[in-house]
């Protein structure tokens, strides 16, 4: 591997991210999968980095899942997006930041389509007015939330308490970075580092002391793929994609996987359990899996947030070995306790992969 070659590409694929004042929109499924992540993101940006980040309570889904599942037409999806942009405009913001990669893809695609087909933009403007009586507006900047963390990765590093280093060996943790397909595969110029060698997560890993694992199936989709998952009979196809990635990364013995998409950490996490049940195989050491975390969770961990506050108990793959490696203190008793100390109930113990 010639790192200079990658650096050249990374330098070529940079984009402008404004320094402050962001309009934040959430992801539908992340709130269910990883509720701690978005909270942590807002906390880090607002309270640790001191940024102005606004969340409008009236914002909705971007329509992406319905759009990619062929259940709503493009115009409908675009009108939903136009409404989100209008909310931003009404709130006095022009830097649009979304939490979801699917959304990011939809927004990028929509903006590019409007750019190429102004008549479509005019049509949507009319639809927006007809349906919501809202003024059409486009954001000045569009960013994914991970772009922000990437931008401020060194500021976070300054506040870092637990770098991505194995405290026992002193060696950097081996981190697999997994980028959501819709981050830059559709529009390489819209993502940090482009489509082939994205830098957005690599930058975080490097800044926080980890070592990036570049394995042959790095580019491969996590296996979510919307329709492949939604139909139960097709789920084996989804699972097989994940399996392919794990088979490819296994020899590198990664310590964790960092992702920036709602679906990826979910599938990379849950399918490990399913693969273990079906084949008896686990990819971590001693019967554990490889933790697949969101970038916010990783940022939270290195900055010293309590693992259970970050919502790491939501992961099927036990997180404890990683915490031990990083030397992060945690209270095993509190794993399944809610914020008010209420018992959340433990998951049914899987027969193969270790959950504690």
């Amino acid at each position: 591997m010639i790192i200079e070659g990658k650096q050249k590409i990374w330098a070529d694929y940079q984009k402008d991210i404004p320094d402050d004042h962001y309009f934040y929109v959430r992801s539908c499924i992340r709130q269910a999968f990883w509720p701690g992540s978005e909270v942590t993101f807002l906390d880090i940006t607002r309270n640790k980095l001191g940024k102005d980040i606004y969340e409008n309570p009236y914002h909705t889904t971007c329509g992406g899942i319905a759009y990619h599942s062929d259940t709503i037409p493009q115009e409908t999806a675009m009108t939903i997006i136009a409404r989100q942009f209008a909310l931003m405009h009404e709130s006095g913001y022009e830097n649009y930041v979304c939490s979801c990669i699917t959304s990011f893809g939809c927004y990028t695609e929509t903006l590019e389509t409007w750019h190429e087909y102004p008549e479509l933009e005019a049509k949507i403007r009319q639809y927006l007015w007809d349906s919501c009586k809202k003024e059409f507006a486009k954001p000045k900047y569009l960013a994914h939330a991970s772009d922000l963390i990437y931008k401020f990765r060194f500021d976070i590093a300054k506040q870092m308490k637990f770098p991505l280093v194995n405290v026992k060996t002193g060696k950097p943790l081996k981190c697999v970075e997994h980028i959501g397909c819709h981050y830059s595969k559709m529009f390489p110029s819209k993502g940090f580092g482009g489509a082939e060698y994205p830098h957005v997560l690599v930058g975080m890993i490097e800044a926080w002391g980890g070592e990036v694992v570049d394995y042959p199936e790095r580019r491969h989709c996590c296996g979510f793929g919307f329709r492949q998952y939604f139909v139960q009979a097709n789920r084996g196809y989804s699972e097989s994609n994940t399996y392919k990635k794990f088979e490819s990364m296994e020899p590198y013995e990664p310590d964790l996987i960092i992702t920036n998409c709602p679906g990826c950490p979910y599938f990379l996490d849950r399918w490990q359990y399913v693969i273990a049940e079906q084949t008896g195989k686990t990819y971590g050491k001693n019967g554990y899996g490889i933790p697949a975390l969101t970038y916010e969770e990783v940022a939270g961990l290195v900055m010293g947030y309590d693992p259970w506050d970050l919502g790491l108990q939501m992961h099927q793959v036990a997180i404890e070995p990683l915490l031990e490696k990083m030397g992060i203190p945690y209270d095993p008793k509190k794993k399944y306790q809610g914020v008010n100390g209420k018992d959340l109930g433990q998951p049914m113990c899987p027969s193969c992969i270790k959950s504690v």
Partner: protein
Amino acid sequence: MKENILIIGGGAAGMEAATQLQKLGLNPIIVEKSEKLGGHIAQWDRLFPAFHPAKDVVDQMLDNVKGVDVRLNTQVTDIQRDNNGFKANLNNGEIIDAKAVVLATGFDLFKAERKQEYGYGIYNNVITSLELEKFFRTGKDERINNPKKIGFVHCVGARDVKVGNTYCSKVCCTTALKQACEMKEVFPDAEVYTFYMDLRMFGPGYEDLYLKTQKDYDVKCIRGRVCEVSEDMDGRLVIKAEDTLFGKPLRMTLDLLVLMCSMEKNKSIEAIQQKLGIANNSDGFMQNKDMYLGMNDSKQDGVFVAGTCTAPKSLPDTIGEARSVAVEVFNYINNK
């Protein structure tokens, strides 16, 4: 006094045009931006289809242009029409008056790093066809360490809208097979694969080369474009392609991947080209008057084109065009 003919470019087309123009009693002046004549072909080791040493051809051409006025390390910075023809300013301060201009500016090799998925410049064992020729000439390339499995990718930067080049680069197929055979000669134990979209063996003896490649050299030609290259734990290359004839995706590990870079228009001449009013054709190369009877004429009076500045061409094609441009220029001068 002999009429001056300004030839921009001292590669195969420029040298051959100068040779013929001199024989026709005109005074060709070659302006070459690099430090020596020969162009791309001088970087080549052997030529398809019969593995003829390129040096023999280049040396013969160099011998032929002895006595021709040659300016090396020189570029045309400005060119204007005047009553006598053209007035060209060179970057060494010199001004050349010429009756006609022959653009023999050749091509640029596609920059392989632009096809990011092939990882040129990122993975250690991905090299270009030109670098392989250098290895054949010098026997030295630290990336080539007794490879056991070698792959060739055709059409890198050609027939590909993703890099903006929709044309076929014409010579890469034959070059790939030639180089594949040569690799087998250097490394007889290696398995050599070529990944092609179509094998375009258009010239005399080329199809025989193809047959020889398959039969005598045991090179395996797989119809399918390599779509993805990665590195494995041992630093070997993992490639993915579809075997389209078999109808199944395919993956394999290679020790060396050679990218058959296509020809692209020489961009360094664009300013002068604009000054002369020569447009580009749809492939981005210089436009000639028409592709049948006016292939050496540009749409501008007194400006002629020869060789790969108008389209990808093989060496024999280029030499043929260079000879015909000499006749065109000669007729132009005599009819004036």
